[in-house]
């Protein structure tokens, strides 16, 4: 039930996350867009778990765990970078760019 529409919503949300990553320069907003992409994938997992068994829902737990760990470490990196450069704008943080 509602498998196709759920996957369509998931695809649109994922693409919006990608567009956000490409569109913004603020590191924190880029992180939020990555969370949005992870959520879109979770939605696809849950939608498919209706037909392919409950294992899809178990996977969503692991995705959430990884997302939580990624947010904690990523925001710690943002804080560390902000201490050095006084900005979170990625245009000014280009030391690692080739």
């Amino acid at each position, binding site marked *: 039930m509602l498998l196709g529409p759920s996957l369509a919503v998931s695809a649109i949300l994922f693409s919006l996350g990608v567009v*956000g990553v490409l569109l913004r*320069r603020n590191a924190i907003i880029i992180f939020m867009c990555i969370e949005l992409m992870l959520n879109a994938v979770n939605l696809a997992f849950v939608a498919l778990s209706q037909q392919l068994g409950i294992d899809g829902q178990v996977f969503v737990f692991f995705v959430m765990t990884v997302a939580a760990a990624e947010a904690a470490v990523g925001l710690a990196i943002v804080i560390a970078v902000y201490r050095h450069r006084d900005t979170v704008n990625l245009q000014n943080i280009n030391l690692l760019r080739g």
Partner: protein
Amino acid sequence: MVTFAFWLFSGVAIVSAFLCITRRSPVASALWLVNTFFSIAALFIILDAHFLAAVQVLVYAGAIMVLFLFVIMLLNLGRPGPGDMKGWWGRGVAGVAGLVLVGELLALRLVVLPAQLVLPAGTVANAVQEQGAVQAVATPLFQAYLVPFEIASLMLLVAIVGAVVLAKRRV
């Protein structure tokens, strides 16, 4: 009724996600993202994942977004700066890439699931009905997926230590 609720919450989720990536202030972006997460939790309920909906609200809309707002306010980024959006060229590239991606993903929906993998309709709904929303998820999590579960706990420990080490002034 269920279909109407599905489209309602889908619309709210998509509109909120769009506002999240276009608002200039990071706080506004974060609050629209919370709105998206709540709508996705509602979609989880419609898709028979009741426990995941609760976890979604607790972990995503609660814990992770509080962490984001905490960092935004710690770094005093709440004021809308002079546009962190890319220029018109970057916007065009982002829009085209997004449209191509959404086209590809929507085309993927045409793939038909192999018939021998598909369970009879309502299997998951029945499992949730019989065992309860928590047990239906907990049984595979603690039996078939026990090792990944333990590895996930180890990963959380590493993330805690890593976050402390990275954010500390002097190690």
